[in-house]
Structures are given as structure tokens and as C-alpha cells.
């Protein structure tokens, strides 16, 4: 049975359209693929990441952790749940009868994606910082200068007649742009509500 919460005397503000759009974008996010990628060479190593999982492929061989896969699935389900709540809450905002439930649902879900996005970018930034200090931490015989989050460079190292040059590319994908848009619209939806 659907819980019925009424706030008599408080008029409906109409459908929360930013919330509706944000909800739909959030629902699409788990199906849009990775948010960030790191490529060494032309595909010698491909590392893709999103809050829904990480994938590592070295010379075409995939390496994965079951726990990361299951946790990625958990985040996917949570994001779908948040998107659904945001969509339902934003639509219910147009009714007087369920206005309070709508407020509860939108307030709960509106900023969640933004936090997820910030946590993801912060984790990537920490990864970039650690990777840039890897030569000092691991005592590598060559300096390692990688871009922070976005960019391309080339790592060169040489020992005893062997020289290796590795082009490095890292960057965000279109799915990340959709996530940013959805997070911003969620923020607007929260304020609107």
C-alpha cells in the first residue's frame, strides 16, 4: 500500500522538470560505459574506470577482481535506484496528494550523484598523484611524469642498450560528461524542490 502523506494547504509546485531530466540521465548512466580511461601505447594497456567498475586489459588479456565487479554491480543498482527515486519524486511533485513524498524522494536522491562524481574524481586525482610519485616510491631508475586526470605524454626509459618509449593517454569519456550534466541537474532539482 502506498503511504499517503498530505500537507494540506501547501500548493503543488508542479512537476520538477530538472529532476525528471536528471532522473532519466541517471537511469541511463550505468549503460553508458566507463567514465575515464588510461591507455598505454595503442592498446598495450587499457585501464577504464567508472564508479560501476574498473577494467584492466594488458595486451588483450583482461584482468579483473570479482569483488570489484560485484561492488560495481552494487553501485549500478544504487545509481539506478537513485535515478528512479529522483524521477518518481520529480513527477510526484506535480501532485498535491504526494507532494511530501516527492520532497522526501527528491531531497534524498538529488545530490547523491554529485557526491559520487566528486568521490570518483578525487580517487582519480589521488591515483594520478601516486602514479607521478611512483618513481620515487618504487625506486624506478627513470622519472615518471604523467598528466593529472587528462592529457597525453610519453614515458621514455633506457638501460644497457635497450630504450623503451611508451605513449600515455588519459582522459574522460562522454559518459562522464553525461554524469556531470546529470549531477548538475540533480543539484538544480534539489534547489527547485
Amino acid at each position, binding site marked *: 500500500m502506498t503511504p499517503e502523506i498530505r500537507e494540506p494547504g501547501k500548493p503543488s509546485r508542479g512537476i520538477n522538470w530538472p529532476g525528471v531530466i536528471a532522473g532519466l540521465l541517471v537511469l541511463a548512466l550505468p549503460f553508458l560505459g566507463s567514465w575515464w580511461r588510461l591507455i598505454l601505447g595503442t592498446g598495450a594497456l587499457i585501464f577504464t574506470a567508472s564508479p560501476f567498475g574498473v577494467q584492466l586489459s594488458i595486451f588483450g*588479456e583482461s584482468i579483473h577482481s570479482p569483488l570489484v*565487479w560485484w*561492488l560495481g*554491480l552494487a553501485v549500478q*543498482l544504487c545509481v539506478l535506484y537513485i535515478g528512479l527515486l529522483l524521477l518518481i519524486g520529480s513527477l510526484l511533485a506535480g501532485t498535491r496528494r504526494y507532494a511530501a513524498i516527492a520532497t*522526501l524522494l527528491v531531497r*534524498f536522491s538529488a545530490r547523491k550523484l554529485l557526491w559520487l562524481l566528486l568521490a570518483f574524481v578525487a580517487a582519480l586525482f589521488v591515483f594520478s598523484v601516486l602514479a607521478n610519485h611512483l618513481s620515487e616510491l618504487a625506486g624506478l631508475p627513470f622519472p615518471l611524469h604523467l598528466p593529472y586526470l587528462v592529457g597525453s605524454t610519453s614515458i621514455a626509459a633506457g638501460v644497457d642498450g635497450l630504450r623503451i*618509449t611508451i605513449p600515455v593517454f588519459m582522459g574522460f569519456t562522454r559518459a562522464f560528461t553525461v554524469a556531470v550534466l546529470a549531477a548538475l541537474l540533480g543539484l538544480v532539482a534539489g534547489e527547485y524542490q
Partner: protein
Amino acid sequence: MTARILSAVVHLIPALIIIACAGSDFAVHGWDVPATLIGEDPLVVVERLVPAAADFDEEPFELNELTVSEDRSTLVLDLLVHSPFTVPVTIKDAVVQVALNGTAITLRASDEVIIPARGSGSLRLEGALPGLTAAPAVLPLDQFTLSRMSITVDVSGIELELESSELGVLG
């Protein structure tokens, strides 16, 4: 009251999803912690990636023959290259310096060569041959001393440049 219950349920569901998924992972892997965390044995993955010396008993380079072009102006060295890599490799450049009776001759790869994964490919090196108009069409390899060798290979965009000097007699 209803609002409080609804709020509690709404907040609780994500936590339940995460716990259920982590629990499912352990249950699927028979509550074996290493299998749950790592999955496949990393050593098996490394064995697939890194060419094992035991599986690859061929020398990387096999000298076929050293010939002289019809007009006696070019020395041609044909090599058979065996790749231990599990991915295709492109030989972008190869330079070999050989010495014949004290005369240094530089041979360079005429074209890029793609060697299939764990396969073989022919590499042809050519160089100007100074003053050997009376040379036979096929020269014995042991007359030549390999003084320097430089090879540049591309493995999935990663460029490896190997350089060796004072390598000894070709044959």
C-alpha cells in the same frame, strides 16, 4: 510516522544492495576470500602475458643468406625473425653494421615488417656495397663480422629500441 518509515526504508535500501552484492560475491566463490578478492591466479595471468623461455626455444633471429644484387651495388641480408611476444610486433627499423675485410657496410631494413603473435617473418636488410664488382652472388656469412646492430620494434604502440655492438662473426 509513515514519512519516517518511508524515509528509513529509502535510506536503507542502498546499504542492503551493497551488502547483498558483496555477500553474493563471497557465496558464489564458496566463501573463499582469495578467490572472492582476486579471482584468477595472478601467476596464470602473468604466464599468459609474458613469453616463457621454456615455451620458446628458437633464437629471435635466423640468418638466411647474404646476397649481392645483380648490378653488384647492393648487399642484401635476409633474416628470419621469430617473435616470442603474444601480440603482433612491427619491426619499424633495423640497422646492421657488418665489416668485410676491414670495410664497414651499413645495412638497413627496406620496409617495416609485421611479425604475427608468436610467429615468424622475413626481414630484408640492404646496404650499398663499395667496390666489390667481382663478388659472387651469394657470399659466405662467416666472412662478415657483425659490429653493430640496432632494431626498433613497435609492440602495441610501445616502442622498443635495442642496440648492440661487437657481436662477432655473422655465420
